[in-house]
């Protein structure tokens, strides 16, 4: 089970949009039931990061982060998503 942290400035608006996209991508790739996504405000991300496998964020990488960081902005615009999807799949297999 991978614990994925998903963060944006508000912890609700852009992270919700990214959550829905990422969940669908992971489910379609056969990861259904093998991950848990938690949304939070980016200010909370560093503190929470030791208990998570990786962070997907629509902001810059927060300082002091204790888990790998993935920039999730491409899931909002739909542009050039494949490299980021590959990055996430790699983290799912680690």
């Amino acid at each position, binding site marked *: 089970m991978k614990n994925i942290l998903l963060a944006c400035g*508000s912890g609700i608006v*852009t992270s919700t949009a990214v959550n829905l996209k990422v969940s669908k991508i992971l489910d379609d790739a056969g990861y259904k039931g093998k991950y848990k996504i938690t949304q939070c405000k980016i200010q909370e991300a560093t503190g929470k990061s030791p208990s998570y496998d990786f962070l997907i964020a629509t902001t810059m990488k927060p300082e002091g982060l204790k888990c790998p960081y993935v920039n999730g*902005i491409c899931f909002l615009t739909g542009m050039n998503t494949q490299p980021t999807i590959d990055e996430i799949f790699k983290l799912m297999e680690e």
Partner: protein
Amino acid sequence: MEFTTLYKERKRCEMNDFDYKNIVDEWGVFIFKDTLSKEDVLHEMVNAFQNHNIVKETFEKALYTREEVFPTGLDFNGTGIAIPHTDSEHVLETKIGIGVLKEPINFKAMGGEGEVSVRIVVMLAIADKGQHMTLLKDLMTGLQDLDCIEDLLSGNSQEEIRDSFIAMLEKA
């Protein structure tokens, strides 16, 4: 008991989320023809929200601070779109405002890398966390549709742009 509550809540959300005609009002649609500053545009849109009791007085300052720290400029297939918003504690009712800029304005890019030349400002007032999943998904999906963006940019009246925007959300 818990299941029934959840089911009812879900039904209620679905109904709310799909009623886009109540979420986008003609008064919330702007066509900015002149060269304006980002501040002018945001202020005018916030003002409309305030005049219609959609947001609290604290919304404007919170929105500016947010935009400064966590900018919302995004490049959707070559069209710059900003989606300024802030925490739901400053919001009384869920609405979406839309401003079409005839003269583009630079916004900082989301994620903090450079600037985006923005043609459309989509201002979000989200009142209740967790109830608008579908709305946000439909918005982001819709904005990725080039034809929908073209309809928004070429709209000649508030009514036309509102209709195109609702059609975009319903189609997504």
